[in-house]
């Protein structure tokens, strides 16, 4: 192919003059989207970046105990460290104790090994009366953690500025004193169960939503206008109602003395004194989340079904397919983009759902997001909360990627 340059009438290469002509429009377009871009940058991308950063950031302790870590770098970790190390720790800890800045240190080190908090608190009180020299003995007299080589190993392990320990903890793994990745002790494994429960709940909520939505969406798409509008309002009305109101209504309905339990007793399915627990367990989570997420399945399905011409089903039947065959071979495959969009939407929303499981889920129905909230608000282990959040985000992206591989994201139709 010839690459001869085409010139516009004033002698400038066509490509350049075209770019020039389009530049103005491009700038205008960019200015129009700039506010949204800045908004997303400030309120969405930067917080997410900060969260990812926080989950691996371990610089606080490194900066507070510089002398100690310098001294520990040469230590082999087999026996208690030498006098110089104790002295280095004294040099680091004494100013913190005087300035009352040692609080963060207790918390951070206690995550590493429990016992640190009480030991450091006691040391904090006594360190002001330490005499010069012979620090090792004085420390050992203050609290028993200073006699224990394991605490020193734990302290040394906090030296690196960056740490992925929070991620290991999120999947019930930890670093042993020799920095090998090992399983958590059986009685402290809670996160794997939580992850599995979250996936299970999200999966079944998606399935339930699909089963309930498909016929409704079909009705919506095929009924005459005046009925379908009414039905549409019935679908959308809960959608417009506050999430909190809906969840609270479910609490009213599902409680042990609530109408649903009354009905079960009235129908004689159980005795009055053996009313089933419908709330504060996984059942409540399923019921409430399915109802709340239903519109997210109905709407994509509806918008896809609306585009399927009724003559296709007729064609299928006139060509000899039974109604079932015509449905399975023609109608159903054509709704797959809607099913994909709805399922992806419901699943991703369900995986990160917070309010509903928090209110009706109880202990057995709480999900990963409830744990994240707990670490944000109660245990104040923000690094761990960030790590869990980042893992959730990664999980959602992986699902999205898998979906794209299997079905193709351009097969999605939201309307």
């Amino acid at each position, binding site marked *: 192919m010839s690459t001869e340059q085409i010139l516009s009438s004033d002698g400038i290469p066509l490509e350049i003059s075209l770019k020039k002509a389009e530049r103005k429009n491009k700038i205008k377009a960019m200015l129009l989207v700039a506010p949204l871009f800045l908004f997303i940058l400030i309120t969405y991308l930067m917080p997410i970046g900060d969260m990812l950063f926080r989950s691996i950031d371990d610089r606080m302790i490194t900066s507070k105990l510089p002398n100690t870590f310098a001294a520990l770098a040469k230590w082999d970790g087999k026996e208690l460290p030498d006098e110089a190390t104790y002295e280095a720790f004294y040099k680091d800890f004494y100013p913190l104790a005087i300035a009352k800045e040692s609080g963060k240190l207790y918390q951070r080190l206690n995550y590493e090994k429990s016992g640190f908090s009480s030991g450091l608190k006691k040391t904090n009180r006594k360190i002001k009366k330490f005499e010069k020299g012979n620090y090792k003995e004085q420390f050992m007299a203050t609290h028993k953690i200073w006699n224990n080589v394991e605490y020193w190993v734990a302290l040394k392990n906090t030296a690196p500025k960056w740490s992925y320990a929070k991620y290991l903890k999120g999947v019930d793994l930890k670093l042993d004193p020799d920095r090998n990745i090992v399983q958590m002790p059986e009685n402290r494994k809670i996160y794997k169960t939580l992850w599995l429960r979250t996936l299970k709940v999200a999966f079944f909520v998606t399935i339930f939503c699909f089963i309930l939505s498909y016929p409704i969406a079909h009705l919506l798409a095929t009924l005459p206008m005046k009925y379908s509008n009414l039905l549409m309002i019935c679908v959308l009305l809960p959608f417009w109602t506050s999430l909190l109101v809906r969840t609270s209504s479910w609490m009213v309905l599902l409680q042990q003395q609530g109408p649903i339990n009354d009905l079960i007793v009235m129908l004689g399915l159980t005795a009055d004194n053996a009313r089933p627990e419908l709330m504060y367990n996984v059942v409540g989570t399923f019921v409430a989340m399915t109802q709340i997420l239903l519109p997210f399945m109905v709407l994509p399905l509806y918008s896809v079904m609306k585009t399927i011409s009724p003559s296709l089903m007729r*064609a*299928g*039947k*006139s*060509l000899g397919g*039974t109604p079932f065959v015509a449905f399975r071979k023609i109608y159903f495959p054509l709704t797959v983009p809607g099913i994909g969009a709805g399922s992806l939407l419901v699943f991703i929303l369900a995986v990160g759902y917070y309010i509903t499981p928090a209110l009706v889920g109880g202990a057995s129905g709480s999900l990963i997001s409830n744990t994240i909230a707990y670490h944000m608000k109660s245990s104040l282990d923000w690094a761990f909360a960030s790590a869990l959040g980042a893992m959730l985000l990664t999980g959602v992206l992986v699902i999205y990627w898998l979906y794209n591989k299997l079905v193709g994201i351009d097969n999605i139709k939201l309307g």
Partner: protein
Amino acid sequence: MSKNNEFVKFDNVDKSYDGKILVVKGLQLDIAEGEFVTMLGPSGSGKTTCLMMLAGFETPTHGEIYLDGNPISNIPPHKRGIGMVFQNYALFPHMTVYENLAFPLRVRKIPKDEADKKIDKALSMVSLQGFEARMPMQLSGGQQQRVAVARSLVFDPQVVLMDEPLGALDKNLRESMQYEIKHIHESIGVTVVYVTHDQTEALTMSSRIAVFNDGKVQQLSSPDELYERPVNSFVAEFIGENNTFDGTVSDITGDTCKVKLINGTEILAKPISVKSKGEKTTVSLRPERALINPEDKMDNNYKGKIKEVIYHGDHTRVRINLLENDQFILKIPNSTSNLDIKLGNDINVGWNIKDSRALDPK
């Protein structure tokens, strides 16, 4: 093989959707085996409803439809073995051309090699070999239409129904498809019931045409019969162009009647739906049957003033005021170039009794 003249039979069929209005009224229609019958009529005349009843998507409110002698009202559509071409083709968009054609064969459990032969034959019939792997969206409107035709024929149905299949195509393509469908029908001899509101299409393709209006068949006859000898003024008006004169029968003897127009002139016409003196009537006359400046003596001869001249290439359309009807149209072939056709001129117009038909009053 003797032809069954009542291969498809509508026997006194009524259809109402809402219990108030009859969309189809007492329909009586026989279609012979191998025939190409067109249901022609304005929208809302009940023609599509008839087709849907035959296909099985609507049930008659009263009466019965017979296919090859068997009543079919209680047979679901998928067991009727009737092929159908839909208005918007209704090709399955998620299947290739091959899969679209294979669908009716697969549901009939026809072995693959036999099915492949049938598909190949059907595609060659519409000259679309080599398009098996295409998706419907990758085809042009005309090609999609051919696939739809091939799909409706691939399983050798007894009857093929076509519901305005050419409505979405442009004029030229529509014309060539008309011939193509006609040739396919001739070559395989399948019975075709075709619905359209386009009268040229109906005239081009059909062996017989059923003109529908108001839920009833107004006339069922061959295209030439329909055009030359309409039995009532609706058919005369609907098929082709038509000049009309309203008046009253003043005399009637055998094959001739005198019709007195409002201005008092009496013209001669052939009585079709009038029987006695004093009846109101509308006389219908095809534009091409009225000649200007006739040399031979004609039964009716009048002078009219030219109101409008429109050049149409192969002919010229002239609108004149004749006997106080200023919508009287003449079609003059362009070979007669020396005629004095100018706006405002007076010209002589003449026509014969057999071409002016006294029909029911409008």
